[in-house]
């Protein structure tokens, strides 16, 4: 795919309301993602912080929040610099649970970001080491 986007879908044995809570509620987000200051609400800015470091890791604006069907927000992390990508979640009722679709679009072009990598701060050391240890880096 050349449009710099990622699409994934998973099936969850849980109702849409419960899945929605996991996507928008700070306490629930903290358990699997990162913790925002407050519940994600349409039209509002958000920022998510590291549970241990307390550092701002991800931020952006909630473009749409249609409980319990659709959530869309802009998504920036520090190493992406000024680049703004967009994350979209779609929830669908299926027998016995919910199908959750993720789209992450508008990722920065490869190779345009040398400066970003060089400006990674100390907080990224551990993360890079983890990537290294996984050693599943495709080249």
């Amino acid at each position, binding site marked *: 795919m050349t449009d*710099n986007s*990622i699409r*994934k879908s*998973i099936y*969850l*044995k*849980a109702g849409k309301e*419960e*899945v929605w809570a*996991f996507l928008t509620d700070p306490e629930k987000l903290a*358990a*699997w*993602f990162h913790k925002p200051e407050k519940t994600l609400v349409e039209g509002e800015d958000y920022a998510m912080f590291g549970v241990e470091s307390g550092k701002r890791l991800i931020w952006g604006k909630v473009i749409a929040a249609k409980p319990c069907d659709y959530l869309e927000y802009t998504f920036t992390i520090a190493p*992406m610099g000024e680049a703004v990508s967009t994350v979209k979640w779609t929830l669908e009722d299926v027998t016995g649970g919910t199908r*959750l679709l*993720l789209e*992450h679009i508008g*990722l*920065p072009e*490869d*190779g*345009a*970001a*040398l*400066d970003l*990598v*060089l400006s*990674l701060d*100390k907080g990224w*050391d551990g993360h*890079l*080491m983890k*990537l*290294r*240890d*996984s*050693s*599943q*880096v*495709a*080249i």
Partner: protein
Amino acid sequence: MQLLPHKQNSPFRALSDPTRRKILELLSRQEMTIAQLTDHFDMTRAAVKKHLTVLSDGGLITIRARGRERISTLAPEGFAPVLDWLSYFESFWDDRLESLKSLIEKDKP
């Protein structure tokens, strides 16, 4: 798809140290000798040389001889695996979604 031959040679390892990132920053402006680089750090020439070896193993710089000097140059193509945001987020979301699934289905029969 080819995997890195050995994780010790990974560009991620090369990048996982602030001194090495500083070296890359300096080299992004111009190629430099070990002596020139050492001037920028509060460490021995031998220590700088060690960092350069890791950077070279990670494919992020090339080192060539010029007379008795060794010149380090940035190798931008070595950054490709690190700059590939698509692969980065592919594995990021796989991890996250897996956590979400196990969490949300924890108490389900």
